[in-house]
């Protein structure tokens, strides 16, 4: 709400910040049941992550060898105290998954912030300055695209030593090129528009034109890309954990749970199954929300 009241009267540069515009976007978003379902799943996962100590039925690290391999509650031998069963050392799967949501979300969101900052900056500069700067930036993009996804993150996490920070940096530094390509293309198209010309004619400095007039008009693309990128980053973090170069912390992560559970898949199918479902549901929810957001924010659709 505050953004709407602070926005200057020049609508063209402010982007879709008006209350009427916002409610139109919201109405379009709310019309889609899949997006609503996605949003509800996401709220649940975020809530579970924030309030993990209060909602988790057990300590995620507490072992109990007599309770190892307890199956989920609805199968023969299941116990109501361990809804989704226990693992090879008797730790509660559900509690570990709830704590695992923390790592997934933290890595997903912060890694995307790294990509966003780097990618948007390079995209703005490339599209605005064009010429040699643009050529260099686009070459770097081409080089980044040459490596299979995950491969570079994998190599650099191993080289720097696994930790939460190196994971975030590695995923962040390998996922920025999409922002650069999209923002650059939008700036190239926008800079020919009348309102940018008008700003320039009124004596706006290049920096002001860039930050005040061009950047806000790329916001809707950036928001949509960021939701989808968070989903990708969560998948990448899980894959890195699975491949054994994870966060290296005592906290469980979903990927790590699947990796450890894989060895016991023949005796305890629930070990890798549920953490995988958690990843699937979370990423699916983000993708559904992001996809609907794209349609809702695009004034050309419906």
């Amino acid at each position, binding site marked *: 709400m505050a953004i709407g009241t602070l926005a200057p009267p020049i609508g063209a540069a402010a982007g879709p910040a008006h209350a009427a515009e916002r409610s139109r976007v919201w109405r379009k978003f709310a019309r889609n049941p899949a997006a609503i379902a996605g949003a509800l799943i996401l709220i649940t996962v975020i809530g579970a992550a924030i309030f993990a100590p209060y909602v988790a039925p057990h300590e995620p690290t507490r072992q109990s060898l007599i309770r190892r391999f307890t199956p989920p509650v609805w199968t023969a031998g299941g116990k109501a105290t361990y809804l989704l069963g226990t693992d090879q050392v008797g730790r509660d799967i559900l509690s570990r998954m709830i704590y695992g949501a923390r790592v997934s979300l933290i890595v997903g969101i912060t890694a995307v912030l790294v990509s966003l900052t780097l990618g948007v900056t390079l995209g703005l500069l490339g599209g605005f300055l064009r010429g040699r700067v643009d050529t260099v930036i686009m070459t770097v993009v081409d080089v980044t695209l040459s490596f299979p996804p995950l491969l570079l993150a994998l190599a650099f996490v191993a080289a720097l030593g696994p930790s939460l920070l190196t994971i975030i940096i590695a995923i962040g530094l390998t996922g920025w090129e999409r922002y650069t390509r999209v923002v650059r293309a939008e700036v190239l198209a926008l800079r020919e528009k009348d309102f940018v010309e008008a700003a320039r004619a009124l004596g706006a400095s290049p920096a002001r034109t860039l930050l005040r007039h061009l950047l806000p008009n790329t916001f809707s693309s950036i928001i949509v890309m960021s939701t989808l990128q968070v989903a990708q980053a969560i*998948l990448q973090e899980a894959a890195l954990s699975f491949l054994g170069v994870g966060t290296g912390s005592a906290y469980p992560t979903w990927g790590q749970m699947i990796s450890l559970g894989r060895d016991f898949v023949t005796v305890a199918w629930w070990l890798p199954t549920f953490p995988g479902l958690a990843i699937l549901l979370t990423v699916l929810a983000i993708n559904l929300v992001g996809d609907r957001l794209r349609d809702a924010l695009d004034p050309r659709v419906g």
Partner: protein
Amino acid sequence: MLSVIVRRIIRLVVVLAGVSLVTFAILQVSGDPISLMMPEAPEADRAVLRQSMGFNDPLPVQFARFVGNIVRGDFGQSFFHREPALPIVLARMPTTLLLSVLAMGLSLLIAVPIGILSAVRRNSVFDHSATLVVFLGTSMPVFWTGIMLILLFAVQLRVLPVSGWDSWAALVLPGITLTTVSTPLLLRLVRSSMLDVVGLDYVRTARAKGVSEWIIICRHALTNAALPLVTVAGLQFGLLLGGAIITETVFAVPGMGRLIVGAIRQLDFPIVQAGVFVLALIVVLVNFAVDILYIYLNPQIRVR
């Protein structure tokens, strides 16, 4: 047309230089390679070796030497195997390529007909189910898909081997797993590029002339939708190789991916560097081939 190709070749060389720089950086950020090579040796011996192997030279000198070695196919000795790294990597390449090409072929076989049908019957139940499958496919972690397939086919049904690479049956599960990586995006692309062309004037003209619907789709629409498809199929090859790294690890397939992941765990950097470079080289060359194919397929460029 020739000048376009020359420009592509120049870009190829520049991108490969960038790829070498990134590959070079992997070892640099790892700290001290000599301590990785000989962890037990006394510091004095290490200092001698560091000097003799040129690790004290300025970075640009080291990079120039690295590029010179790459051109000659020399990535150094594997710390672990004590053999040249590149041949070890290349010996694993056919397996990875077989798996990737198999998955790419399967993906095209699935994505093209379903994508076309989705576009032609837009907003039908079929279209919506296909969209749902695309969403599920893009949201599943590859390694988990693989483990679930193992659970279903190898543990429950006992019809396929769990891992290994000794029979054709062993190809099935890794092949399906990797196919789930590339199919959803390809399907979405086929659908959207078909939707882009079915509304165009020439398709309407053909329909007005009374040309049958299937001839319109195959002859008129598909040939024009093929152009973006070729480009993205090329870009997808990188995605596929990324998926192959994980798939090979899940199913113990003796390919490059599993080799690199193992080398990363052992901090065997010559293997890591050779592997990363070769995989990137494959992606670059595939995309180069796609660029050339694009020029050939696109009459606007071909005529010039």
